[in-house]
């Protein structure tokens, strides 16, 4: 069984948000609901300035606080290590939202239950790449099996010394970033 993960190479990211919007259509989300959010950082003073745009979504952590804090078991780890939500078990308490250090969950205003990136779970089962990976203009996103040492994902993680956004939080995210 695969253990799905992703790499986002910020040196190839145009900050264009094509991933954000393509994800909405793929998942038939309303305009206000974004599974992928961008955070912008600015460093330095004019004229020595740099900017970085960081796309953030559910990190599909190995130790997901959202799953551990869910009182009903609605948040769970599915096949391939993908973190999912079983809506039928969700009571809308939002503990998972507050416990996510990546602020990756959003509320569905129709059902009052949380939603988030599911790594396009239904589609990757059929061999498709997640939509954000398919559409990424710079080819900044690589998706694959972390357990396969030959995968492009592992190759790039090692070559580019990619690391999670906040390894110090101990949640062991499966999305790795390159600066």
């Amino acid at each position, binding site marked *: 069984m695969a253990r799905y993960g992703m790499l986002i190479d910020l040196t190839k990211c145009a900050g264009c948000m094509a991933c*954000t919007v393509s994800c909405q*259509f793929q998942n*038939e989300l*309303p305009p206000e609901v974004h599974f992928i959010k961008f955070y912008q950082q600015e460093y*330095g003073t004019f004229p020595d300035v*740099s900017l970085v745009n960081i796309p953030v979504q559910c990190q599909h952590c190995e130790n997901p606080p959202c799953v551990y804090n869910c009182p009903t078991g609605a948040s769970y780890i599915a096949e391939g290590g993908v973190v999912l939500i079983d809506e039928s078990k969700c009571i809308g308490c939002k503990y998972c939202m507050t416990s996510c250090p990546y602020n990756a969950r959003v509320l569905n205003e129709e059902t009052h*239950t949380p939603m988030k990136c599911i790594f396009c779970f239904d589609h990757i089962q059929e061999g498709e790449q997640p939509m954000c990976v398919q559409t*990424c*203009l710079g080819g900044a996103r690589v998706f694959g099996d972390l357990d396969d040492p030959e995968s492009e994902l592992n190759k790039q993680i090692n070559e580019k010394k990619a690391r999670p956004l906040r390894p110090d939080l101990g949640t062991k995210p499966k999305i790795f970033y390159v600066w």
Partner: protein
Amino acid sequence: MLQEKISRRTFLKATALAAGALSVGAVGTFSFETWKKAEAEKKDDIRVIPTLCTGCGNFCGLNVYVKNGRVWRAVGLPQHPKSKGKICARGHGLLATPYLRQRLTQPLKRTEDGNFQPISWEQAFREIGEKLQEIRKKYGPGVIAHISYAGQKTAVWYGQRLLWALGSPNTFTHAASCYAGRGVGFEHTVGGTPGTDIANARYMVYIGRNLAEGITPGDVLELAKAREKGAQIVLVDPRVNNMYQMATKWVPIRPGTDLAFVLALAHVLIKEGLYDAAFVQEYGYGFEQFAQAVEKYTPQWAEEITGVPAATIQEVARGLGKNKPRAFIHPGWHGATGTQYANSVDAARAIALVNALLGNYQKEGGLIFGKTPPLGNLNPAKYPAPEKPAIPRVDSEWPLAHDVVTAVPDKIRDGALKAIIVNRSNPVMHYNNPLYAREAYKLLELLVVVDIFMSETAELAHYVLPEVSYLERDDLVEGVGGKKPIVAMRQQAIGKIHPETKASWEIYTGIAEAAGVGKYFNFTLDEVNQAMLAPTGLSLNELKAKGTIVLNSPIVLGTPKFNTPTGKVEFYSTEFKAAGLDPIPNWKPPLVMPDVSKGEFRLINGRQAYHSHTNTTRNPYLLVLTEDYHGDRLWINRRVAERMGLKEGDWVEVRSEVATGRVQVHLTEAIHPEAVFIYAPYGSLAKNNPGRNFAFSFMTLLPYHKLDPAAGIALTQEVIVTLRKI
């Protein structure tokens, strides 16, 4: 803002109902097991239709997925050179277009009191046809004009045919507020605007060109590849744009002084012997005069004007020179070379010439003139073709430009234009000083607007004719030149949403018949497309099956051909000379300069990654990004703003000589202290545009300039503003 939110929610519910079984936001909350069970029980009917995007002028190839009759998602076509398998945020967001509530659904006629009254197509065609005949009889055919978006081939082709049939040569595109400066500069220097071989370049300079926000997806992908291979990417821009993340260097420049920077690059390349002397010898015309002229443009001279240290200019020149011919300055698009400054045309010429100094034309990693695909035309024996009218165009005082749409308001005021047909363009809003333009357009005896939304121009029209959206129609076959030319076409992906809407080609045919020139329109769109495809040997069905087809005839690199009067790179321009203009792109300052001591700024603008034009601000998916990321704020240098007592998000009044606007400020170190920056598409004045409530349009603050004599460009950054906290 709350009001906006509510209306978008309502929009969604309305469209969800219309779609029947659409489950808004359901997938993300189902467990896989639940989903699998549900899916097993119901079989979705999913069809994939290859077509073309309409988000900007690139018209990327895309596969549209239609699920149960409704547009679901899209992915880029890998074989289309603009998309290379990728689609930007706009391309995805615009998939909602057919379902937007603001769409026009039936022909409208303006009544005496300024309101609109629905009418039948028969009445619309009859009355427009009669009016056109009456105007032609009264004033002659030269008072009729057509305005369309340049990329929209169907409107351009049918619009020109209709105008020619009526006897008028006056067809306009939006070029003069977009890329006309670059076009005129390159055309009269090297014979045309070449493409860029980004993936193979080792040193690239982008001056006011921002691939990450004025996006061509395939170019962004190539840029990432080049960067991975170690290419140097230099951004020359008054602000840090989104390309920064992929670049190696940002060179902040005083806005409006790019020409000085480029002339100094030429100076260093020649002075230090870094240029390709053999190339210049073989392909150059008038190099000696140019070399003599740039003698005085030293890096120290340019430092004074541009604010860029002389050492940086030397470094960039040497970077280009040492990596030639796998090095280039990007020709630009809308920025420094496009339509923004009084010296933009000369900046374009200077850039074309520095590239010639690098000997990079038709070389790997350089600038490449693509091959144009062979496209045919209707057989005139069977389909009578109108002759090009012999009477002069109304904008014939610009001998070097192709069309000067920016001159239209004055041509109307002068009485030279009486009737205008507008298709997929919004000339009242998209050029300088919309209020000036609006008053002019009101003087027309006939204004017909073909659109899918009620634009600012449509609000003034005598007749508004509702078109089907891009996902509901076929369009004309288009050819895209390049290393390997392609043919592509937009085709219908879904059924018509509103029964009383029509495709452009049907509208032109209807008007032509009613205006008494129907004999020139005795064919269907399919027949034109078959005729256009004939020389390629492809059938229409083949093209429809694939959407985009690469023609297997790659160009041979190495020997460039320059389509100029001398057949050479014109360091000394014979055509500029003939037009009474400076044959050498010598330094010329911009039209206006802010006096910083008086608190003045230059108002600069640019493209945003998730919007194109005012029309995209109607899209709920894209507009919500503006809201969430404060994409409509005015950038101002942090230290300058703090001296003025401004904080992030404060409201200010921005005042120019012609108007004022209200906007929130964004404090940042990433902008030149003499400029304030706003993204271009906001501040719509159209009554039903949700983007109306966001920021202001820089166009409203822009004076209606005396246009530049070479290209008639809009001079969209020749405006000085002051700010006042409110």
